[in-house]
């Protein structure tokens, strides 16, 4: 219980610091604050899909349904954070570019990711039987993760994008104010903890549902 309160206070402190302590980037103005939600959500999306792939591979090796619970939960939460990143990015795009959606390479990439993992959930819903569903979903999750590094890291660097550059400049050093970097890192840590807490709830729920179904 106590660490849930700590997590709440941690995220609240990050938001307050983002609004009151960290400076704004001159070009971006007040929209800089979107960064403290968008950046952690985008990274945790990648983390969720990666976690899903790792546990899918573990399921295929060990045939333990606990790994399937982890894989399914991580993919669902990854999709949730993907939606958060997309919405926060669209709000920022509306303020800076004048439209919510511009088919920028990064917008297109995250839309493709959304479709890929929505299909994962559709596959899980369409297959009967715990073992069969877990095996097919694990295979799909492993194949789907092949697209993640291409869509997140490769495509936005190949095509011209209006999206602000990544945090690190050409010399491998942060290009932004250290206070902004600190708040972004703080929020990333908090959102990552939030992800694992929600994942633990989802995994427990999955086990309870299976136990009830088996009874």
């Amino acid at each position, binding site marked *: 219980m106590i660490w849930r309160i700590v997590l709440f206070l941690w995220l609240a402190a990050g938001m307050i610091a983002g609004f009151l302590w960290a400076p704004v980037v001159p070009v971006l103005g007040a929209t800089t604050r979107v960064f403290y939600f968008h950046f952690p959500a985008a990274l945790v999306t990648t983390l969720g899909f990666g976690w899903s792939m790792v546990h899918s591979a573990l399921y*295929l090796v060990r045939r333990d349904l606990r790994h399937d619970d982890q894989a399914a939960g991580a993919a669902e939460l990854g999709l949730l954070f993907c939606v958060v990143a997309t919405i926060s990015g669209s709000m920022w795009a509306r303020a800076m570019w004048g439209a919510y959606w511009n088919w920028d390479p990064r917008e*297109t990439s995250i839309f*493709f990711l959304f*479709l*890929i993992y*929505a*299909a994962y959930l*559709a*596959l899980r819903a369409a297959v009967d039987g715990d073992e*069969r569903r877990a*095996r*097919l979903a*694990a*295979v*799909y999750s*492993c*194949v*789907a993760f*092949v*697209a993640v590094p*291409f*869509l997140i890291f*490769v*495509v936005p660097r*190949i*095509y011209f994008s209006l999206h602000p550059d990544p945090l690190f400049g050409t010399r491998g050093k942060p290009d932004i104010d250290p206070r902004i970097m600190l708040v972004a890192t703080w929020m990333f840590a908090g959102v990552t903890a939030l992800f694992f807490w929600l994942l633990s709830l989802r995994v427990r729920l999955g086990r309870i549902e299976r136990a009830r179904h088996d009874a």
Partner: protein
Amino acid sequence: MSLPILLPVLAGAVSGTRGQWNGVPVDAELRLLAAYAAALLGMSLLLYDHLWED
């Protein structure tokens, strides 16, 4: 189900074709498609037995 996974291939192919028509170098698209194909092929080889069970 595999269609979303092929979306990057479709997007790269469309972009490359458009670049070719416009006389723009398409090296980046070709590298992207080759790397994606190699990654998918490798993963498919690893996973084939698990699908074959079905």
